[in-house]
């Protein structure tokens, strides 16, 4: 981030568009940073104006966590959110899923030539609000501009830095047979909200994305049963099914689900039937799945249900011993099946 050079006319946010000059590192780039990004994200670290942000370290005994994600959602605005708040929540959550308290975020923007400044400002405002609400400042950033046809409006890569308090040990490798699987709420809303806005699929729904920062929920869970939370993960791309397969593989265990226990909003179910999708594979952005020690399950579940983002939390299954690391599910019809990894893309189907 740089300091204000001597340009005079303010950005024409209303009618202006990103042009190649905004990415060239000169006066136009500095103006965009100052008037749009720095103004919205304002905090003392960002204000340092150097090549990076210099930050106080966490207290001794803490370990650090770094997590990064690129955000490329299409459309950029969807019911319940936009790429801006998503880019904050997505990374705050990844930091939190490591058992860490998120402290700082960085943001790298790749803007497409021709993108309306008004839309960019909306996205940046949403991002700033999400960061403020989460209490995690955006301390440094970058802006690049690519030619029209070489980008897609806005891509935002965020990186989060967090600190793991002493005593917390959370990892996808820690699940043990007998552990309990908890889910913080209903699945599939984010993916369905985004799909509902795609021109060729377009349907009307009141479903909104569940995008949210989960770190305070995680803090409540960790606090409720010290040492009892073994795995935390947010079932984003690939949905719950893919996340559970990751855990099974990483911990070298099997998982056994109860389909009837997995909450799905009727509208989400209906949209999935319409498009030939399976809600188990649809993305979430404000949900987490936890593997907890059996003796801690009740306490953790109670803590989740006491948190606004975990009110609908429930047990959905348990960890089993399975050399093939399958995720199996008792269907709500009473049968049993394997819940596999997502193959390829999950495409709307006709049959």
């Amino acid at each position, binding site marked *: 981030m740089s300091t204000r050079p001597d340009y005079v006319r303010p950005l024409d946010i209303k009618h202006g568009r990103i042009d190649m000059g905004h990415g060239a590192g000169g006066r136009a780039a500095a103006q965009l940073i100052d008037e749009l990004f720095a103004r919205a994200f304002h905090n003392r670290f960002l204000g340092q104006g150097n090549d990076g942000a210099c930050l106080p370290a966490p207290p001794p005994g803490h370990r650090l966590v770094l997590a990064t994600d690129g955000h490329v959602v299409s459309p950029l605005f969807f019911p319940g959110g936009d790429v801006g708040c998503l880019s904050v929540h997505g990374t705050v959550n990844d930091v939190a899923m490591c058992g860490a308290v998120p402290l700082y975020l960085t943001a790298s923007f790749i803007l497409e030539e021709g993108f309306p400044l008004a839309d960019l400002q909306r996205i940046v405002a949403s991002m700033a609000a999400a960061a403020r609400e989460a209490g995690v400042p955006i301390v440094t950033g970058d802006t690049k501009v690519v030619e029209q046809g070489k980008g897609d409006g806005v891509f935002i890569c965020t990186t989060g830095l967090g600190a793991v308090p002493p005593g917390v040990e959370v990892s996808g490798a820690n699940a043990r047979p007998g552990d309990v699987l908890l889910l913080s709420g209903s699945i599939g809303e984010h993916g369905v909200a985004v799909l509902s806005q795609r021109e060729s699929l377009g349907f009307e729904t009141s479903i909104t994305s569940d995008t949210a920062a989960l770190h305070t929920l995680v803090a409540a869970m960790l606090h409720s049963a010290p040492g009892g939370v073994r795995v935390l993960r947010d079932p984003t791309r690939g949905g719950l099914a893919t996340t559970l397969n990751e855990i099974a593989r990483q911990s070298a265990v099997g998982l056994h689900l109860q389909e*009837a*226990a997995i*909450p*799905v909003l009727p509208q989400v179910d*209906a949209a999935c039937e*319409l498009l030939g999708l399976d809600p188990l594979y649809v993305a979430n952005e404000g949900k987490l799945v936890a593997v907890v020690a059996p003796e801690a399950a009740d306490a953790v579940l109670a803590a989740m249900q006491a948190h606004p983002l975990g009110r609908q939390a429930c*047990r959905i299954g348990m960890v089993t011993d399975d050399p093939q690391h399958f995720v199996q599910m008792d269907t709500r019809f009473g049968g049993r099946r394997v819940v596999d990894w997502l193959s390829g893309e999950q495409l709307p189907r*006709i049959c």
Partner: protein
Amino acid sequence: MCLAIPARVIALTGPDEAVVDLGGIRKTVSIALVPDAAIGEYVIVHVGHAIGRIDAAEAARTLALFGELAAQAALADTSTMETTTWAR
């Protein structure tokens, strides 16, 4: 093959066009293939087209039959499962 779902017609919006409701979501579909579909009626929707209608009386009969079958076969002991208000 042939993913299709029942949906209720809630508005006729043009020649060959209707809005249907399906568990709370709304979609505009073609009714070129069931031109006399009426508001309130259930149609079967496939690739954006209503391809047939659901006979309400027959649907009720099937539902009753399913009740029987479920009882007969004791298909699943769902009473032992935790469910939530929106379990699908």
